[in-house]
C-alpha cells in the first residue's frame, strides 16, 4: 500500500522559526513528515509543541512573524517552498484545505453558508455554480446536517457551533481536495456534539479517500481518526507509529506518560459534615430568563463534588449564585450551617475569604500588568495583613506548594505557559486560606498532560489542607479522576446527585447515558462500536 508513487506530501528536515523578543527562536527543529494518499495522520503534543505550525507549513504557509528556515516540502511533486504566493493560493482552498478550531471565527457573518461553502470551488473553475451547489447539499447530508437542502441558506449565526464545524468540513471537502488539515476541529465543542462531528468527518474522509492531517491534543480523539500518529514535543518528533501499535506499545517514555494520564482516579468517599449547601435555588438573569430551577446541591467537607453537563446547563450560573455575584430569586445558600447573604456586597470579609474561585481561562483571570508576586501577594496583604519580607516569603512558599519556584516571582502572565498560569490562579486562591474552592472548568483549556498535573496538585492540596471543591466541568474523564460525588445538570435542573461510583455505573437516566457514552475512549474501535450501537436503536 505504501508505494513511493502514493506519496502525496513529503516534508524533510523542516526548520521553522518565530520572531519574538528581538530574535528568531526555533519552533520546529528538523521534523520529517510523509503522508500517502488517503492516509490520515494524527499530530499530537502539548501546547507549544509546534503541531499547528507544522500543519500549516504543509501548505507552505507560516503565520506572520514566523518563517521556514530550512528543509523541503513537496506536495504531489511540487516544491511548496519555491512556489510564488499566487501559485500557492491556487493550491490552497482547492487541493489543500484547512479546517480551523474556531469555525465561528472562520466564517464571514455577512454571507450565506452555502455561498461560502462553494466559493473557492467555483472561483477556481472546478465545478460550475449549479454543480457545486448540488454537491454542497449532498455533502451536508453526508455530514448528517439537519435539513441539508435548506441549511445552506442560513447565516453563520443561525446554526449551532457543532453544525458550523460540519459546514466548515463541507467547505473543505467541496473542491475534493487531496489533503485536508484539521486543526483541533472539535476542541471547542461539548462531548455530545464532538461525537457527531467526529462521526461525520470520519465518514466523508473515508468515502472520498482524502488524505488528512489531524491536529489535536486529545489522544482519545486521535485514536478514532488517524491511521498513523506522530508525537511532537518542543518542536521535535518523539515517535511515529500506526495508531494500534502506538496505543498498545508506545516506545518512548514521553509517549507512555501521555498515555498514563487517563489512569488517574481517586476512590470516592463522602462525609456527613456538610460545608456548603445550596437549597431549592431558582435563579434568573434580568428577572426574565430563568436559568436555574429548584437546584439543591450538598458539598461535604474536604470532598469534591463535580457538577457536569453541557454548555447552557446552568453549571456556571450555580457558581455565580454561590459566590454572590447573582443573587437567587428564591432559595438559600448556607455555609457551615449558617445562611450566606444572597448579595456579595453584604457578605463579610471572612465569608469572602473562605470561598475562593478558580476560572476556566487563566489568561483573563490574571491582570496582565501584574507580576505573579503581586497577584499572589494581594490576598495575603488584603486578608492576612502581610507586608514586605513576610509577604514575599509566603508568596515563595505558595509558589513551592504549586510546584513552581522563586524564579517565577516577578514574571508577568504573558511569560507563563497555560498550565503555569492556572497554577498561579490556584496559588492566589490558596493564599486566602479558603474552606471551599469553586473550580470552573479549570482544566478544559489545557493539554492532557498539563491537566493531569493540575488535577494531581488539586488532590494533593485537598489532602493536606482539607479544602472542599465544587468542580464544574463537562469532561467526564476529569470527573472520574477527581470527584467524590457527581451532580448531573441539564437545562438548569439537577438530573441526579450521588457518589461517583453510583452515578457512573448503570442504570442511568437517559441524559446521563448520552453524556457518558459520548466520552471518547482510547480504544481505536470505540467510535465504530458507538456508531453501530446508536444506529441500531
Amino acid at each position, binding site marked *: 500500500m505504501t508505494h513511493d508513487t502514493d506519496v502525496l506530501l513529503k516534508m524533510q528536515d523542516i526548520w521553522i522559526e518565530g520572531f519574538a523578543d528581538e530574535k528568531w527562536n526555533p519552533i520546529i527543529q528538523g521534523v520529517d513528515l510523509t503522508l500517502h494518499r488517503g492516509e490520515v495522520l494524527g499530530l499530537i503534543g502539548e501546547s507549544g509543541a509546534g503541531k499547528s505550525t507544522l500543519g500549516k507549513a504543509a501548505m507552505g504557509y507560516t503565520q506572520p512573524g514566523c518563517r521556514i528556515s530550512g528543509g523541503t516540502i513537496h506536495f504531489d511533486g511540487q516544491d511548496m517552498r519555491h512556489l510564488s504566493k499566487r501559485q500557492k493560493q491556487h493550491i490552497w482552498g482547492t487541493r489543500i484545505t484547512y479546517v480551523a478550531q474556531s469555525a465561528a471565527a472562520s466564517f464571514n457573518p455577512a454571507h450565506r453558508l452555502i455561498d461560502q461553502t462553494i466559493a473557492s470551488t467555483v472561483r477556481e473553475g472546478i465545478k460550475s455554480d449549479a454543480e457545486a451547489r448540488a454537491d454542497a447539499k449532498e455533502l451536508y447530508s453526508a455530514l448528517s446536517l439537519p435539513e441539508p437542502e435548506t441549511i445552506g441558506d442560513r447565516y453563520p449565526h443561525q446554526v449551532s457551533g457543532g453544525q458550523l464545524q460540519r459546514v466548515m468540513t463541507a467547505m473543505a471537502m467541496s473542491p475534493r481536495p487531496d489533503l485536508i488539515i484539521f486543526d483541533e476541529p472539535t476542541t471547542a465543542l461539548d462531548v455530545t456534539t464532538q461525537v457527531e462531528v467526529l462521526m461525520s468527518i470520519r465518514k466523508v474522509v473515508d468515502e472520498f479517500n482524502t488524505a488528512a492531517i489531524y491536529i489535536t491534543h486529545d489522544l482519545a480523539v486521535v485514536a478514532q481518526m488517524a491511521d498513523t500518529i506522530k508525537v511532537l514535543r518542543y518542536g521535535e518528533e518523539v515517535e511515529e507509529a500506526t495508531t494500534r501499535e502506538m496505543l498498545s506499545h508506545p516506545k518512548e517514555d514521553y509517549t507512555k506518560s501521555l498515555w498514563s494520564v487517563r489512569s488517574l482516579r481517586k476512590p470516592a468517599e463522602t462525609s456527613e459534615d456538610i460545608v456548603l449547601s445550596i437549597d431549592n435555588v431558582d435563579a434568573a438573569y434580568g428577572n426574565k430568563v430563568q436559568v436555574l430551577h429548584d437546584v439543591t446541591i450538598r458539598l461535604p467537607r474536604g470532598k469534591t463534588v463535580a457538577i457536569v453537563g453541557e454548555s447552557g446547563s446552568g453549571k456556571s450560573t450555580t457558581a455565580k449564585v454561590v459566590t454572590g*455575584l447573582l443573587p437567587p430569586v428564591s432559595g438559600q445558600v448556607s455555609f457551615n450551617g449558617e445562611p450566606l447573604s444572597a448579595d456579595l456586597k453584604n457578605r463579610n470579609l471572612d465569608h*469572602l475569604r473562605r470561598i475562593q474561585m478558580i476560572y476556566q481561562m487563566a489568561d483573563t483571570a490574571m491582570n*496582565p500588568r501584574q507580576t505573579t508576586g503581586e497577584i499572589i501577594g494581594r490576598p495575603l496583604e488584603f486578608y492576612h495583613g502581610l507586608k514586605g519580607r513576610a509577604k514575599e516569603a509566603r508568596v515563595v512558599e505558595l509558589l513551592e506548594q504549586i510546584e513552581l519556584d522563586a524564579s517565577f516571582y516577578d514574571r508577568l502572565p504573558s511569560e507563563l505557559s497555560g498550565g503555569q498560569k492556572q497554577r498561579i490562579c490556584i496559588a492566589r486562591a490558596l493564599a486566602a486560606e479558603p474552606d471551599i474552592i469553586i473550580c470552573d472548568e479549570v482544566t478544559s483549556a489545557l493539554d492532557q498532560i498539563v491537566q493531569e498535573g493540575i488535577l494531581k496538585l488539586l488532590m494533593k492540596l485537598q489532602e493536606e489542607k482539607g479544602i472542599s471543591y465544587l468542580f464544574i466541568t463537562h469532561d467526564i474523564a476529569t470527573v472520574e479522576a477527581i470527584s467524590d460525588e457527581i451532580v448531573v445538570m441539564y437545562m438548569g435542573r439537577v438530573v441526579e446527585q450521588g457518589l461517583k461510583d453510583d452515578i457512573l455505573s448503570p442504570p442511568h437516566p437517559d441524559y446521563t447515558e448520552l453524556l457518558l457514552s459520548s466520552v471518547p475512549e482510547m480504544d481505536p474501535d470505540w467510535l465504530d462500536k458507538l456508531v453501530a450501537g446508536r444506529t441500531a436503536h
Partner: protein
Amino acid sequence: MTQPENAYTAAAEVAQVKTRRTWKQRAWMELKKAPPTAIFGMVVIFLYIFVAVFAPLLAPYGEAEIFAQPYAPWTSEHPFGTDQIGRDILTRLIYGARNTIGIALATTFLAFLIGVSLGLIAAINRSWLDQIISRGVDVLMAIPSLIFALMLLSIFGSSVWSLIIIIAVLDSTRVFRLTRAVAVNVAVMDYVEAATLRGEKLGWIMKREILPNIMPPLVAEFGLRFCFVFLTIASLSFLGLGIQPPTADWGTMVRETSNLIQFAGFDLKAGLTPLLPAAAIALLTVAVNFVVDWFLHKTSGLRE
C-alpha cells in the same frame, strides 16, 4: 513507579520568558527604531519645552516691555518687529510658548482627571450612575463646544482659572467617552471579577486592576486632547475671550497683528508677522500628532 527521564514538571512547561530590561534600555530600543516623523515630532516638542522653561533667559526683552515705535519693521534690534503698542514680537513669541503650552497642559490634565475618574466609575457601575453620567455628557456634547465656551466665559469672566476649568470640563466629556468605552471591555474580565469577589473597594479596582490595562489609548488621547485644547485656547484668544493682555499668547498675537497682513504687498516681512504665532501653533500641533501616531502604532500592534 520510577520517574521517566523527561518526566513532566510544571516549571519546565514551554513559556516565553522575555529578557529582563530596564525601562531605559527598552525606551532606547524603541527610539532607535522610531520613524523620522516621530523623531522630528519629538525634537520639535523638546525645543518648545526648552523655550517655555527658559523663556526669561532666551527672550531679549521683558514680556510687556513697550518701545517707542509701534509696528516697527524687522531690524537687528527687533528681529520680528514690534506690535501695535510697541512690544517686541520675538520676546512675546517666546513667552507665548510658556503661557499657551502651560495653560493647555494644565487644562488637559484637569480634563483627564475628571474624564478618567467618571469614565471608570461608569464602566464599573454600569447601572443608574452610568446612565446619569452618560446622559449628562451627551447633553454637554450636543452643544457646540466653542460657542458654549464663549458663553460661559462671558458669564464667568475670562480669567486664566475660569478658562482652564471651563475648557477642561467641556473637553472631559470626550475623555469620559473614551475611558468608559475601553474600560467596559476590561471591567468584564475575570480578574476584575476576582477582585470584586475578594472584596476589594472601588478605588483599588479602578486604580490597580483597570487603569494599567487601558493606559495606551489614554496616553494617545492625551496627546490629541492637548492639541485640541491648545487650538481651542488659541481660537478663544483670537476671539478676544481667551488669555488676556498683557500676558503674551499666540492666539491673541495673531489677532493683534492680523491687520499687518494687508501690507504684505509693500513689506513682505511685515506681512509675515501675524503668520509667525500661527505657525508656532501649527508646528506644535503637527509635532504632537506625529508622536501620537507613532505611539498608537506601537501600542495597538498594527503593522504597516
